[in-house]
């Protein structure tokens, strides 16, 4: 899942990107509201981690703009102002969750997963399709009574496919979910990860749609 991290403190921003990376997220850091607006224009983000006090204004303004134009992208507010009144203001402004600084990396990851899950309309932490169930928290899966481990990027591709079964994902769409802006995209990596996944799940679990991309196979009824 790709997240936009809007935080002006370099140490914290770096920590968020690395920490959320360990937790299985792909992150793109920006430090100002202007950069955040530009990044959101390009799209492709599953959620936003938003600091309130930014050099060129308040994160709450950006949140207001997003909600004002009907954008339902999940937003987690991150701020030092965490009195009840501030939290109420943030949530009423349209935030999906609110976390006061300093926070725990595991709690942040769990909240982000819960937030994204709610956004997708699921109540359970696990997501499953055709005999495969994925646990986003542990980045593990269970397939026909076998316990499977995935690398971060393998999991990201599989998660994207299961999130929208039937949807055909192009190679570039999948790359977008795998890499932040600052990361160098290696050629053929998507093919390599798909190859690894097929080795773990069987050849037919992921279908190649010639010329378009990849999608999951139809349900087999098991």
């Amino acid at each position, binding site marked *: 899942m790709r997240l936009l991290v809007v935080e002006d403190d370099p*140490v914290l921003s770096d920590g968020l990107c690395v920490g959320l990376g*360990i937790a299985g997220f792909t992150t793109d850091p920006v430090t*100002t509201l202007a950069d955040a607006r530009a990044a959101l224009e390009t799209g492709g983000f599953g959620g936003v981690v938003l600091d309130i006090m930014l050099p060129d204004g308040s994160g709450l303004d950006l949140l207001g703009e997003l909600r004002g134009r009907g954008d339902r992208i999940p937003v987690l507010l991150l701020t030092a102002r965490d009195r009840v009144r501030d939290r109420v203001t943030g949530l009423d402004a349209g935030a999906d969750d609110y976390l006061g600084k*300093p926070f725990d990396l595991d709690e942040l990851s769990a909240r982000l997963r819960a937030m994204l899950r709610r956004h997708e309309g699921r109540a359970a932490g696990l997501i499953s399709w055709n005999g495969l169930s994925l646990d986003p928290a542990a980045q593990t899966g269970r397939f026909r009574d076998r316990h499977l481990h995935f690398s971060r990027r393998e999991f990201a591709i599989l998660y994207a496919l299961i999130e929208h079964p039937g949807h055909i994902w192009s190679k570039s769409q999948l790359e977008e979910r795998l890499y932040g802006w600052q990361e160098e995209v290696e050629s053929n990596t998507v093919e390599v990860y798909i190859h690894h996944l097929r080795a773990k799940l069987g050849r037919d679990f992921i279908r190649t749609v010639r010329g378009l991309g990849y999608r999951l196979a139809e349900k087999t009824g098991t």
Partner: protein
Amino acid sequence: MSIKLRLFLILALATGLVWLSAVLWIEGSTRAQVEKVLDARLAQSANMVSSLISDHRIEVGDAADKPATITMPASADYSRQLSCQIWSLRGDLVGASSGAPQSRLAGKEGFTTSLIDGENWRVYSVSNADLGVTVMVGDRVTMRDSLVYDVVAGLLWPALVILPLVGLLIWVSVGRGLAPLERLETALRVRSPVDLSPLPEGPAPREIRPVRRALNGLFAQLERVRRTERDFTAFAAHELKTPLAGLRMQAQIARQAKDDATRGKALAAIELSVDRTDRMVRQLLDLATVEGEDNAPEWVDLAALCSDLSMSLRQPADAFGAQLTCDVPAGSGIVTNRFLLFAALRNIAENAILASPQGGQVRLSVRQEGWNVVIRVTDEGPGIDPADLSRVTDRFYRGRATPFQGSGLGLAIVVAAAERMNGTLTFPTSDRGQAVEVTLPR
């Protein structure tokens, strides 16, 4: 002493004094009146006796050994105290009223006062040349005094009853008069210590209105100060919590990292964050100290100050590869508060060092302009963005494109310190890098 008691005592004392002087005046005038009336009576009585003898209605004996007794009616107290003597020119007592003293009442004609048998007498003597006798009529001074005393006492007794009543009236009146003040006092006493709202407007005596106005002004000022402090505290909390969040995040990464490179990076970030937080805490303390600093001005040698400055900035200067040079003429100095000047220059120079490119020069120079001393610090960094200049001295304001992550407090400290030294902070245009000038009165 309360105003009420004070007013009461003043009014009671004044009233008492007025009463007392009235009593003294009445006593004096009564005495004069009584003397006049009684003297007239003495003279009248003496003349009457003298004419009675002349008509021979009363026979005066010849011999001194058997003086005649004139019986006077013994009805009233006063009459009984009136005594009459008739003396022959030879010096024999030829007649006397009953109860009159045996010794001669007076030695000469007219009014006299004489001491007889230990008592003061007022006597009137008149000579009857036809019969060769002197008629003397006198009364006791103590009797006259008691008459005056009776009059004064008649005035004093009602006064003693009325005075407490007057006192009570004064007490009540003073209380009523001070009621608006008491209402103000109650309004102030019952409000909570955090309530800084203005006192309610409304009718008030002319004397209370300026007090209320002054209090409301004070409340407004306190409210402003408190809001600024609250904002400052909220900002400070935010600014301290953000690096704390970064520290915690990086610490968790260091613990969870699977490879040494990630762990090493996280630990380096922790160190950087600790340094920055430490600088921020020091600046917060500096700001508080600068605002509360009230040491006396002293002679500050600017060359020595500058070398102390480069000593204290050695660590960041080495880290950023910048060099601080002092271009200060020997012996130049200024009378000011050393701590404030040092805090101001330290923050300016530290900013300059942090903004410097590798190997950059930070130069501190001093010049005199009329009655002012101008201390100028220049660097070779990118300079402050002109769009940020107006806000760059605001607390916690960081320029949008700062080359380093500051606390946003440095220049706020400089401004506060310069103000305390009656100086100013300016950012003159410079061909290269940024110039900052502190102008101080000599």
